[in-house]
């Protein structure tokens, strides 16, 4: 317990050097990379029964950290806070099922896309809706800060959008009937359907194209290169395929791009 307190106190303030210094060099000299992941988004990042944080993003980041030769330390981010935290420097990289959007490139930089998903709708089993338009005038839950909200508003302007702070609150609201559907990425919807023992279903197919990228601070090209190479290495030596099968149960349809 004492050791834990000391370790905790020692990780209090991180002061990095002057603004011109290179983030990758900093990380390598510190020996630890601070990674932000989600703790509540199965299967990309969540906490299992033992209290450990696991998921596809976690495994991929662990591989990258090993490739860079540093240890990894995870921190929780939410859809709302992930960009602000990496732009402010509290976190070095963030892999939190974040879609690579052009608008986000203004504030942070992205790696190559490492996962390709689409947006979909999750509704209760007995919902009569068949496609997105059926939710006109109904309450649809989104998460504050995720792209799904704006996309859905553009698609179905007459739907009533209810913002939640975190995914589990949205799921509980859906289960209790306070909202009619949740719209977010397809893989999450399908995981919820698998976990829900038949009470939920996916409606409406894929509504948009969502390539995920890992985010880091603006203008850190050494770090970005290192991470891109590490992601591609994971595809080349088969780790990516293994992890994909482990967390999603099938082979990927699109792989991250490989450079010769």
């Amino acid at each position, binding site marked *: 317990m004492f050791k834990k*307190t000391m370790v905790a106190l020692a*990780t*209090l303030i991180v002061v990095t050097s002057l*603004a011109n210094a290179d983030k990758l060099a900093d990380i390598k000299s510190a020996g630890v990379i601070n990674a932000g992941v989600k703790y509540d988004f199965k299967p990309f990042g969540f*906490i299992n*029964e033992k209290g450990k944080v696991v998921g596809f993003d976690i495994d991929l980041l662990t591989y990258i950290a090993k490739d860079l030769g540093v240890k990894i330390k995870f921190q929780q981010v939410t859809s709302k806070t992930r960009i602000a935290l990496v732009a402010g420097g509290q976190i070095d990289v963030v892999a939190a099922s974040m879609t690579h959007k052009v608008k986000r490139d203004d504030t942070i930089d992205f790696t190559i896309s490492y996962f390709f998903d689409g947006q979909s709708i999750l509704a209760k089993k007995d919902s009569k809706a068949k496609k997105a338009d059926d939710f006109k005038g109904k309450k649809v839950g989104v998460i504050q800060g995720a792209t799904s909200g704006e996309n859905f508003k553009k698609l179905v302007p007459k739907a009533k959008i209810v913002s939640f702070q975190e995914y589990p609150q949205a799921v509980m609201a859906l289960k209790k009937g306070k909202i009619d559907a949740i719209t977010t990425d397809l893989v999450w919807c399908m995981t919820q359907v698998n976990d829900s023992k038949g009470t939920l279903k996916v409606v409406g197919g894929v509504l948009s194209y969502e390539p995920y990228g890992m985010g880091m601070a603006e203008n850190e090209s050494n770090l970005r290169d290192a991470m891109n190479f590490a992601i591609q290495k994971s595809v080349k030596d088969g780790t990516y395929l293994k992890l994909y099968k482990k967390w999603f149960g099938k082979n990927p349809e699109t792989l991250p791009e490989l450079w010769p």
Partner: protein
Amino acid sequence: MSESLSGYFNRHKYIFWILNIVFIIIIFILFQKHFYPEANFAEALTADNIKFMLFGMEDELGGLVLTFVLAFISIILSFIIGSILGIARYSSIKIIKIPAVVYIELFRALPLIMVIFWVYFAIPIVGGAIFDMKFSLSALSSGIIAFTLFESAYIAEIVRAGLNSIDKGQFEAGKTLGMNILQIYIFIILPQVYRRMIPAILSQFVSLFKDTSLIYVISVVDFFRAATIINNRIYMSFEIFSFVAFIYFICAFTLSKLANKLEKTVEKQLHT
């Protein structure tokens, strides 16, 4: 009849407490049966879950232990800063007094969540920009800093109230003995002020203990956050949040009763 009953309970306090506990348990069971018949406590409160809520994630300080550590560290730091601020607020030198007034009024008007957001998100960006240095605060340290800044405003008010209750004659007596102002404060005034302030400071500690749950918003895994993480996985909110409320109630209630006892002892000391 009720008067003799209260007299009886005053004399036999242990029976009172045992009956209280039994009564609370009965009411809770009735409440649960009515509102939430399908509650399943065994599944929600497994040993793993309880261990996670009390101790947090592996290799890290977390859970209920972190809540206590946070409250403790923050109250000590804000005690130091608050005392300085309180003395500054009490002094009549404008240059010292005005910044203290501004600080106290500002932090008493802001909600604690806003202070946490300021410290965690805004200050590193702007501070880094001003000093051309990228520095970042970990979530834990932002929490401690935010709590300290917030509580020191309240402690400053308590110190000021304590200073107001000290007879001005004490200052004059110190001066006639040839002490400078610093010695007067350290040896004469502050010991008396602290004796009087102990109950108020202890109640601030209890209130801070409850407010540490707010560090939820910057994703530090304290007791409340750990409970919500488990809830996010298994969706059994009634069981988990009853447990959380129960633990918080026991800790806060015990702490405030201890504070009351300490206050009574100090009162006796002051008036003998």
